[in-house]
């Protein structure tokens, strides 16, 4: 067995154990009793919306949060204009009459805008919300309820993308749907280590005790969730709280986003490397190590297959030249060819395991569909996901690793 097969089968084996463990954890947690605020007990919350050049989306975002069923007397909405050069501020000012508090500052990054918002806030619970995010009317209430448990310092929602249009958005749509199950499972293990910057909730007391957002950090939301874990608090997930974000539609935009995320993850994990220890229970002993090993395998296998494909293309070109470019003689399809292909597939363990993981994906998606109620073109999106995600994921990681290794500057946009 070659080295690459050892790598592939090891990753499959670990994947099987991890998947089984997560499913078992999810099933076991179903019986757990959850402590929740009743309607009367709901505390005052502040939703902070920082924005830089978001004139096109800010109105929809405001309307979605204003439509929330959270008691109005306990809801404070703070908008921080982070030195926008377009008409963001003018659009926002129209919403003053709806009770939205507007602040404006010089451009300093999302973290600095959020910190200003926290300083101005009066709520016990702080929500950070992106200026292009749409929330379900019930999400604010549902998420806040979890703070009855005093150990909980942060609550993440069920984040999905808005209706996908491009192929890349379809891939991301499926990726986000699959993430719903894992996020909930991680929460049952107290192992959520990434909370979406698009919409998450925190206790204000945490900021008061441990400081606000790290303004120089390229993934300030990730840093914050790791900090919450580092200091031993709990991060919950509210799978019934739907939040819709806009996924990048172009390859270059998506690459920039992922490069920032993954480079941020590497840098922040390095900073909080002490989390990877027995002291942090399931998170430190299993969830994070497995995630890191999976990334390593994904990158390794992607590099291998990229080179393999290149060599195969080279061989095919040589063959074509050797048969004097007679294409017809190459592509003979008959029942024997199909039968042999079928035989080769069903007798290849890797294919059988891939089939198994596809079934598991189906289980994750059915969970997501139940939570969402309505999904868009699930089968088509799934097709594009299987076709492209593994390659894209490996590619994003390779680029991110290169950027971190060579200390290249990574900007927000």
């Amino acid at each position: 067995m070659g080295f690459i097969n050892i790598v592939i089968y090891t990753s499959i084996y670990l994947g099987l154990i991890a998947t089984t463990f997560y499913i078992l954890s999810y099933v076991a947690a179903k019986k757990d009793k959850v402590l929740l605020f009743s309607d009367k007990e709901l505390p005052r919350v502040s939703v902070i919306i920082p924005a830089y050049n978001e004139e096109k989306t800010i109105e929809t975002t405001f309307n979605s949060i204003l439509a929330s069923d959270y008691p109005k007397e306990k809801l404070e909405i703070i908008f921080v204009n982070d030195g926008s050069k377009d008409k963001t501020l003018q659009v926002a000012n129209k919403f003053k009459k709806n009770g939205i508090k507007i602040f404006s500052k010089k451009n300093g990054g999302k973290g600095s805008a959020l910190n200003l918002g926290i300083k101005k806030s009066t709520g016990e619970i702080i929500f950070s919300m992106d200026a292009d995010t749409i929330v379900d009317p019930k999400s604010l209430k549902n998420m806040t309820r979890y703070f009855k448990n005093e150990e909980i310092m942060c609550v993440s929602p069920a984040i999905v993308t808005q209706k996908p249009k491009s192929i890349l958005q379809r891939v991301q749509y499926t990726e986000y749907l699959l993430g719903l199950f894992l996020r909930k499972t991680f929460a049952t293990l107290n192992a959520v280590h990434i909370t979406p910057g698009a919409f998450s909730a925190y206790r204000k007391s945490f900021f008061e005790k441990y400081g606000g957002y790290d303004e120089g950090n390229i993934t300030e939301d990730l840093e914050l969730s790791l900090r919450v874990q580092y200091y031993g608090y709990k991060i919950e997930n509210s799978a019934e709280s739907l939040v819709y974000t806009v996924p990048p539609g172009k390859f270059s935009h998506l690459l920039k986003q992922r490069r920032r995320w993954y480079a941020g993850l590497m840098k922040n994990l390095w900073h909080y490397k002490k989390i990877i220890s027995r002291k942090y229970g399931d998170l430190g002993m299993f969830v994070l190590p497995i995630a890191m090993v999976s990334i390593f395998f994904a990158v390794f296998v992607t590099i291998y297959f990229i080179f393999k494909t290149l060599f195969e293309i080279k061989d095919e070109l040589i063959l074509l030249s050797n048969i004097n470019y007679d294409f017809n003689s190459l592509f003979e399809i008959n029942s024997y060819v199909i039968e042999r292909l079928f035989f080769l597939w069903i007798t290849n363990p890797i294919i059988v395991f891939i089939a198994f993981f596809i079934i598991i994906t189906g289980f994750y998606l059915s969970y997501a569909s139940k939570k969402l109620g309505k999904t868009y073109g699930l089968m088509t999106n799934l097709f594009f996901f299987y076709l492209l995600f593994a390659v894209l994921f490996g590619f994003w990681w390779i680029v991110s690793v290169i950027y971190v290794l060579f200390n290249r500057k990574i900007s927000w946009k």
Partner: protein
Amino acid sequence: MENRKIKSKKRYVLAFIIGTLIFILGFVLTYSFSYIEYQRISNVQSQISYEIFNDKLDSSLFGEDICSVESFRRVSEDLGFQGRIIDDLERKFGKQDKRVLFRKQFYTLIELEHFEFVKEINEKCSSDIQTILFFYSNDEKIIGEAETAGELLGAVSSRNQNLVIYSFDIDLKSDLITSLKEKYEIKEPLTIIINEQNIVIAPENILEIEKYLQSNSYLEQNSSLTNNSMVIHL
């Protein structure tokens, strides 16, 4: 902060056991599929062998017209297909697997029986079905070159309708292979014998093979045989 406890050690043990069982099950399943295919191939081999034998006897004992033998085309196609599957099985079960080795030896026997049958048709029907004997090796050192040669022969086969290609693994421990190697003086793998006359070793271009092939009329005249051309056992 206080140390966090692992939620449930039992769950880890259970996940390890279930994960390991699924992992093993994956291999058991694929092995079972391979074995089912092996059994199917074994049955097909016996059937093909019987049909060739039957056709030959019909011709020699009962004077049946060998030129209109209908089963020829089907037998040729089946033979080519199962040759490939046996090769695949050898790779899956291992080179030393006795069951596959036996099937491979039996397959070589059927190939030669078929080869002889073709020669008989050529002789009795004044036809010129052309033949290629390809001596390959599954040795890992030259597997890439062997596959390239196989692909070239595949292309030759597609382009020449009056051609039957027989492939022989020169590493197979078989008296027949030894005799064949002696008869055609095969000293190295990737040797190709065209119409029992011309020798080409490890060809790099299709023309190196095709220059020894002749135009043919027999198969064009017999529509039932026009799809005879194929690589048997690559």
